[in-house]
């Protein structure tokens, strides 16, 4: 038994263990998702996250040791965001033709996302910290954390709320869009990217290239719009 413990201690100290865990958990999540015919409710990020949290809690591993390994996956978020330029370029003609419609829709979506989240949190009695941290929940994580800090929220809590929002949006979005008879791929993509940032975009990209391109665009523009507007609105609302 002593040997096994030594091996465990050794493995826990290398990034390999938690890197493998992350990939394996996601692989399983993706397998379930694909087997279900890409049913949005069986979101692979959600399955993988639940699985990994359960394993970490069961093995009494803290998040920092996990992240030491998983950071290599996390790092690729930046390059993947840059890579969204390619689907966007492929759909540039469509984007250019409806530039005004896109801008107005994203602006409306940005305000809906932040104001409704704050209003619901406030009226249902969430703590001040939680309410403030909810405000930028639909914005891609890096920007959302910056906004949260500016408003006096908790950036690391905001990051988690952002991921949960993305999962929620990717799970409910396709169903809601169909329910409201929104069939055009640009509109579906724009809605997913505005409400559910990169996770919504990942789902949109899998379903349709046009939706993916519009979703990536919406993610970027929503980040920009919210980062500029929300601090201004906040000052007007709470400084008076």
């Amino acid at each position, binding site marked *: 038994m002593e040997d096994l413990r030594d091996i465990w201690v050794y493995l826990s100290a290398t990034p390999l263990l938690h890197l493998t865990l992350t990939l394996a958990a996601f692989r399983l999540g993706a397998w379930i998702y694909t087997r279900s015919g890409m049913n949005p409710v069986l979101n692979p990020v959600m399955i993988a996250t639940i699985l990994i949290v359960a394993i970490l809690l069961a093995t009494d591993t803290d998040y920092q040791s996990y992240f030491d390994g998983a950071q290599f996956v996390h790092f690729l978020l930046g390059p993947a965001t840059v890579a969204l330029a*390619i689907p966007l370029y492929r759909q540039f003609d469509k984007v250019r033709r409806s530039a005004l419609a896109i801008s107005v829709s994203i602006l409306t979506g940005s305000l809906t996302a932040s104001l409704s989240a704050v209003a619901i949190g406030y009226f249902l009695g969430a703590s001040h910290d939680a309410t403030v941290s909810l405000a930028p929940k639909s914005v891609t994580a890096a920007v959302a954390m910056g906004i949260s800090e500016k408003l006096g929220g908790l950036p690391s809590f905001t990051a988690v709320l952002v991921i949960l929002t993305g999962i929620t949006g990717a799970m409910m979005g396709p169903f809601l869009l169909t329910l409201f008879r929104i069939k055009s791929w640009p509109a579906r993509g724009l809605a997913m990217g505005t409400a559910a940032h990169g996770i919504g975009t990942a789902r949109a990209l899998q379903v349709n290239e046009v939706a993916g391109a519009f979703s990536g665009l919406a993610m970027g523009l929503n980040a920009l719009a919210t980062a500029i507007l929300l601090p201004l609105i906040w000052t007007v609302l709470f400084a008076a």
Partner: protein
Amino acid sequence: MLTYLTLIFACQLAGELIAHALHLPVPGPVLGMVLLFAFLLVRGKIPKDLATVTDGLLSHMSLLFVPAGVGVMLHFRLFGDDWLPIAAALIVSTALTVVVTGLMMAWLGKRAATDIEG
């Protein structure tokens, strides 16, 4: 392949530098996306090897959110106190945002009478 992976990293790096130097409210990678997009406009087409790199990155994009998502375990206490209002805000507000944005775009897109049904 390596050339274009370097190009992607360089775009992100330049984006980070610009965002920090000018105190812009946009994250480096989003500016990097704009820079890569500008590169494509100048180039006039998407180089095949670049598409190979980016398709690889984007086809598993949701995997990249898992490490941050696991961070939920750091905040169980905050959820414990407020799980109901937080869950309600996440679900209702996200649903509202999807529907409002989608309807707005569908309506404006139709009004503009462009053939974007693609």
